[in-house]
């Protein structure tokens, strides 16, 4: 039994009267400690898949079991708790609060998930991505690579078992890209499950396993 188990998951978007299948019967399993890349052309449904795994969106049908718990039946509030405590999510666009400094951004999951020693945990997480010295800087004062590292620190601050990254290097130059990837490798070595979406074969090749999507279906894994 894997850490992430998807059974026949579909996601349908309503476009007027037509239903568009973003995911059409996806079943997959990701074991604890794995490093997986999800690949596929634009519109293949890889981001939608990541959002469902990251509890940011609910499947239209099918079953999603995370660590033995059936996610597809959880309430909005329980999903929010999952997002703050069990999963870390990294976006292509970083999605940091622009007016808050790095430290405050990293503290956010603890603010909402509860728990003490917020500042210490946030500083630890920033140290893990090598940005402790930039804790008081706002996102606009940081480079793209640094912003993404702050976002990774935010994803790690509650010590989640899994890190989900949706095109994490899509907006970065090659130097920053290799920095980010080496952080992911380090986290993987530390035992964290890493799942990342990418459309660059080079990056995908660094993962242990590649899941390829096309038109909302898995074509290889």
């Amino acid at each position, binding site marked *: 039994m894997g850490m992430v188990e998807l059974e026949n998951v579909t996601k349908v978007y309503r476009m007027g009267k037509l239903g568009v299948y973003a995911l059409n019967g996806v079943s997959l399993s990701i074991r604890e400690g794995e490093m997986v890349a999800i690949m596929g052309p634009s519109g293949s449904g890889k981001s939608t898949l990541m959002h469902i795994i990251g509890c940011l969106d609910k499947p239209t049908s099918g079953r999603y079991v995370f660590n033995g718990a059936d996610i597809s039946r959880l309430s909005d509030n329980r999903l*929010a708790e999952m*997002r703050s405590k069990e999963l870390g999510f990294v976006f292509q666009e970083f999605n940091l609060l622009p007016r808050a400094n790095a430290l405050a951004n990293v503290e*956010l*999951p603890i603010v*909402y998930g509860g728990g003490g020693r917020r500042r210490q945990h946030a500083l630890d997480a920033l140290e893990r991505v090598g940005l402790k010295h930039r804790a008081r800087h706002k996102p606009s004062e940081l480079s793209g690579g640094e912003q993404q590292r702050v976002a990774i620190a935010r994803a790690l601050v509650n010590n989640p078992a899994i890190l989900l990254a949706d095109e994490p290097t899509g907006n970065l130059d090659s130097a920053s890209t290799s920095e980010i990837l080496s952080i992911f490798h380090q986290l993987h070595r530390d035992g964290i499950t890493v799942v990342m979406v990418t459309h660059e074969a080079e990056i995908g090749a660094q993962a242990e396993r590649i899941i390829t999507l096309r038109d909302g279906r898995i074509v290889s894994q």
Partner: protein
Amino acid sequence: MKLIQFFIIAVRSLLANKLRSVLTMLGIIIGVGAVITLTAAGAGAQASVTSLFQELGTNVVYVQPTNPEAPGMARFSPVFALPTLTLEDAAALAAIPNVIGVAPTNENFVEVTAGSESVAAIIHGTTPAYQQAFGHSMASGQFLTDNNVSSRARVVVLGGKAAEELFGPSEAVGQRVKIKGQRFTVTGVLEPKGGSFLGFSMDNIVVVPITTYQARLFAQRSASVTEGIQSIAIQLTSAEVKDEVIDEISAILRQRHRLAEDDRDDFMIVTQEQVLGMIQQVTGVFTMFLSLIAGISLLVGGIGIMNIMLVSVTERTREIGIRKAVGAKRRDVLLQFLFEAAMLSLSGGGIGIIGGWLLATLISRIEIGGQRLVAVISPDTVVLAISVSVFIGLVSGMYPAIRASRLNPIDALRYG
């Protein structure tokens, strides 16, 4: 999440966008400030007029001439009044039991001069009973005497303000003044009472004997017609005997004026309460009108908050998405925006109260025609203005906050 956290998040968010916060607050500041200032000015006007008339006491009734032939309410207007009351009427009323004093009084405007100084004053022609009926005490000298009245003496008692303007700090008693070209001796100066009515300070009066007034200052051209009395103030032993004395006055005057059973009165009897009631009615309308204007500006301020809250939530959809993506629950988002709205409207209301208070104080400093409009801030108004502004803030924050909290994190992140 603890409430203090919401507070911190709200403060940070408001500080992060200072211009927007200030503009939003401005609506409430102006609204609350206007409510405070305008109602304070209205209440101040009402209080100053009321206090003036309350000093006169409740055990005084007034008799005034009317015109029984005039149509409708014009019958009671002094403009149409016939000279039906005489000094003899007043003397007859003095004989009624429980009547302490009778002060027949006529008034007019005169210019009083002393050397190079002159002052425009209200002149009252009356009798010694006037002093007690209108509650005047003497600053120096003495009031009119019965002797003054019977001898038509050229003596005058000055109001505090009139004395000060004519003689400054030096003693007025014993000095000479000129009224309508005639020399008068000052026998006394009244203690200032403060207050004013319709722009005229009650301290800006000069008092002469009624006989002097009628015979020397405002004599009728045809000597056969006795000048009418404009008003007779009648002081009673106590307020309890008022009704029976009023009946008595009415009976005596009807008999003296030879009115038949079905003739209308050619006079009216007015009590202190009636006068006060009429004045309060007028100033009440005035205050209500001001409050209405103030209320409208508060409403406009509220709409401003609502507008900004809507725009602000829409503009911050992405922020909401980020917060939800890292674990914010629906309740967290809702409370964050409600806190922001409440704090905006509360601090706006607070500043508005301070501003309104300052403005009201400023108004109290301004003298219009020697009269001060004392603004009175009532705690009721403050509480009302604050509750209205917080209510508006919460209601206007509620709708966009609910809308924001319902957003799916992914949809919110895609926005903008």
